Structures are given as structure tokens and as C-alpha cells.
């Protein structure tokens, strides 16, 4: 049955390529896997748990990420080399590709789905594109002192066609309003030392920027930005010597579950737990390495954690009710990323050094299948299309 379905899909894709007609199909259960070394993406079906197409020619995809159009049909892939590629998941082809900067780190899409914004390291700043045509609409350089431009991190969309982000070198949080797409306006807030990534909470209210250069997380209430950014989780290391960090952690709105945010500590093998109502620390959970991704299953009952080198073969699963790791395993080599099926019954893990994507049952922790991929890294499902902060 499953193989039949996959076959049908492959046939459909082949047919499409041949005659360009469109069989009826929704996109809610589709997604893509970044193959970082070879500039390919593999398109996947999360119902069939199979790949159905592979697309090449996307350039340097190390650290690439993707966001989706509102209808889940188009993926916008941000490559390391500054390439921005629009992919049609139904026709399994590249619609448009532009080189938008020298060195990019990701991007986000506006509330109304019309503006795609890329965040760049060099030249440091953000750039807005028309989601339809990829035409450049506006550019906001991350100049934090005269002639000094910062790397931009943590870009996330917020309600009102706004985007929040942080400046690694500038130590700022910025909110740029694109309600007039060609004439954006920007607010600046001092944030702290070396913000390394950021997130907008799933309700769109708060922007959090994790700090590398000091203990703590900067928090901005986007409903009351005039109050400025404040620091939470200050001094969580209490002056203790930090362990070396061999890979920077990532933050995204996934880490909020059951009224709490689960955040990676920097230089400590811990996940920090914060109450989202009070923004006070309510716990710390020891884990087996420097956390990189700390992601809640969509129901918030579990939080899955992967780790930086040299512990990147391990995964820890936190039960949010028990407040501790309840399952620890070594699914493969170089586990770089994970993505939950839209309602969380499976999780997909990319095992870079095994050249595989592994599919696990999140309730029983059993492996359900795998997909071949060349050095897979990011996995992005279309369910992201409907989320704030992506």
C-alpha cells in the first residue's frame, strides 16, 4: 500500500515533468530535506514516509534553511552562498533562483505571505523580496556604528508584517516593519553581548535572543516594545567556567511547550526551563552534550534535543510532565536536525554521516523507516507555512 502510494507519486512527478499538467494534490503532508554537500533538496511525503523527487543546482547548502508560502506549495530555500531559491513542491522544480548576497544564514516570510526576507552575514543586514517574483523590495543594512555592519541572526516573522532579529556584532535586537514593503522602518533595542540566534514565541508576542558573550537571554515584548529589551536567565552559569561550544545552538518557536520555554544553555550540558508567564527560570534538565536544537513535539508532551560535536550522534527526549530525560539513544552519526510530522506522531532525523534521514515513532521510539540523502541537514515540512515566527 505504502509502496504503491510512493510509486503513484513518482509516476505523477514524472508525468508532470513530461506534460506539465497538474493532478490534484494537497501540500499539507509534504516537505523537503536539504542535502548540504551536493546542493540538492529531496522532496518528501510524510504520509507515505517516502521521497518523491530530488532537485539539484541550489549551490552551497551548508546551514541552509527553508520557509513556505501560505499555501504550502512553494519553498524558499536560503543557501549559505547567498542563493535564494523558490521551489514548487507539486511540480518538483525550481521556479526561480537569485543570488541575493555573499553570505546568508536564513530567512523568514511575512504574515501575509507576500514578503520573503533574507538575513545576511556579509554584507550584514536583511533584504526583502517579493514572494511572487523574488524581486528585491528593500534592504536594511545592519549598521550599528558608523561604517560598522553586523552579522544578522535569529530573523523571525512577527504579526503586522514585522520581522525581529538580532545583531551578533552589534549586540542589538531590531524590529523592522515592512507594512510598506519598499519603505521599511526599523526600531533598535540594546540586547547584550553577542546574540547568536533568536525566536518569536508561537503567539507572536515575544522575541528572545540567546546570548553567547554572556549568560542569559534578551527578551523583547513585541506588544510593548517601548519597554525595551530585558534580560532573563541572567547568570545561569553563576561564573562557572564554560565548556567549549563546538557548534552554535539554534532557537525557534518550537521550544515553547506547555507554557514553558525549553532553551539550550551555552557552554553547559543543560536545557534551561523558563515559565513563559513570568519569564523566571523554573528548572534545568541535564542532557548529554551541548544542546543544538531543543524542539517540542507539537503537543508539547515531549522535547527532543540533539547535540553539538562531538556528541552529535546522540538524542535525548525530555518528558515535559516528568521534567527529565526519559529516553536517550544514538540513532546515527552526525544528527544535524529534526522535524516533527505536523501532529507529531513521527519525527524525522537527519543523520549526516550515515547519508540517511531516519523516521521514528515518537510514542514508542521505534524506527519506522529511512530515506537515502547525501549528507542531509535541515528538514522542513510545509506545516511551517501556518506558524508565526517562521
Amino acid at each position, binding site marked *: 500500500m505504502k509502496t504503491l502510494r510512493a510509486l503513484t507519486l513518482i509516476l505523477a512527478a514524472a508525468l508532470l515533468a513530461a506534460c506539465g499538467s497538474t493532478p490534484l494534490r494537497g501540500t499539507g503532508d509534504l516537505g523537503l530535506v536539504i542535502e548540504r554537500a551536493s546542493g540538492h533538496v529531496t522532496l518528501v511525503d510524510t504520509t507515505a514516509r517516502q521521497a518523491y523527487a530530488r532537485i539539484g543546482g541550489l549551490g552551497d547548502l551548508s546551514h541552509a534553511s527553508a520557509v513556505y508560502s501560505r499555501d504550502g506549495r512553494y519553498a524558499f530555500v536560503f543557501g549559505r552562498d547567498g542563493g535564494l531559491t523558490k521551489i514548487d513542491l507539486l511540480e518538483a522544480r525550481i521556479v526561480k533562483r537569485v543570488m541575493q548576497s555573499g553570505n546568508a544564514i536564513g530567512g523568514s516570510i511575512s504574515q501575509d505571505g507576500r514578503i520573503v526576507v533574507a538575513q545576511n552575514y556579509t554584507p550584514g543586514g536583511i533584504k526583502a523580496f517579493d514572494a511572487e517574483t523574488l524581486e528585491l523590495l528593500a534592504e536594511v543594512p545592519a549598521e550599528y556604528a558608523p561604517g560598522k555592519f553586523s552579522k544578522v541572526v535569529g530573523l523571525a516573522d512577527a504579526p503586522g508584517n514585522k520581522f525581529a532579529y538580532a545583531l551578533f556584532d552589534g549586540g542589538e535586537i531590531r524590529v523592522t516593519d515592512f507594512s510598506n514593503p519598499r519603505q521599511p522602518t526599523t526600531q533598535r533595542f540594546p540586547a547584550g553581548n553577542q546574540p547568536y540566534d533568536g525566536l518569536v514565541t508561537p503567539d507572536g508576542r515575544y522575541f528572545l535572543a540567546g546570548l553567547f558573550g554572556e549568560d542569559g537571554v534578551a527578551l523583547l515584548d513585541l506588544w510593548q516594545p517601548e519597554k525595551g529589551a530585558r534580560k532573563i536567565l541572567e547568570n545561569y552559569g553563576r561564573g562557572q567556567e564554560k565548556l567549549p561550544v563546538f*557548534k552554535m545552538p539554534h532557537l525557534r518557536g518550537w521550544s515553547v511547550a506547555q507554557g514553558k520555554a525549553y532553551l539550550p544553555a551555552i557552554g553547559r550540558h543543560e536545557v534551561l526551563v523558563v515559565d513563559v508567564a513570568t519569564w523566571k527560570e523554573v528548572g534545568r534538565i541535564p542532557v548529554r552534550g551541548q544542546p543544538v536544537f531543543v524542539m517540542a513535539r507539537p503537543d508539547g508532551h515531549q522535547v527532543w534535543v540533539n547535540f553539538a560535536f562531538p556528541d552529535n550522534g546522540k538524542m535525548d527526549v525530555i518528558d515535559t510532565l516528568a521534567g527529565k530525560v526519559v529516553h536517550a539513544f544514538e540513532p546515527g552519526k552526525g544528527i544535524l536536525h529534526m522535524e516533527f510530522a505536523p501532529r507529531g506522531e513521527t519525527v524525522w532525523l537527519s543523520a549526516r554521516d550515515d547519508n540517511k534521514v531516519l523516521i521514528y515513532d515518537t510514542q514508542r521510539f521505534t524506527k519506522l523507516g529511512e530515506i537515502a540523502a547525501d549528507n542531509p541537514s535541515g528538514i522542513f515540512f510545509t506545516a511551517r507555512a501556518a506558524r508565526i515566527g517562521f
Partner: protein
Amino acid sequence: MSGTRLVFALFWLSTAAAATPPDAVRQQELVRLVRQDCGSCHGMTLQGGLGPALLPADLRDKSRDGLKAAIYEGRPGTPMPPWKQFMSEAEAAWIVDQLKSEFPR
């Protein structure tokens, strides 16, 4: 404990003692380490990311010793971590030589 730990312990034992340049097998491991794991900050093609670009043109005017020390000891106060747990000084020097010429694929 875990297999990975053991492998790394063995790794360390087999390499930390060596003052001689790495052999062919070890060279391949180091190339992979640089492209994949250094690549998370410097880019897989070494054109830079959170960390600076490490292409020959970027490093031309920088001293071998300074670069080797950056890799081996890290740069405190920046995200550049020390790698001495995972390689010998001779291996860090070998990486610098490769970076300054053309880094293998």
C-alpha cells in the same frame, strides 16, 4: 559508555602523542572534520559564516603560528573553541598548511 566516547578516546590516544604530520587516513578524517564541523561556523566551502572566511587569500598575511594557536587553543571571548581535545598540535599545523594552500575537498 557510548561507542562515540570510546572512539574519541581512541582517537585521542592515537593522535595526541603524534608530533609527526598525520598519515593519509588521518588526513582524510581531518579534511572531513574541517569541512563538516568547522564548516558549521566557517562554511563548508570555508567562505565564512559566524566565523571568518578561511580561504588562502584571507589567511595570506597571517602567521602560521597564530592560526595554529587559534585552532589548537581557541580564541577566548569569541565563539572559536579550542580543538586540542581532538587533534595534536602537528595536526593543527597541518590544517593551517592546507588552508593556506588549497584545502582538499
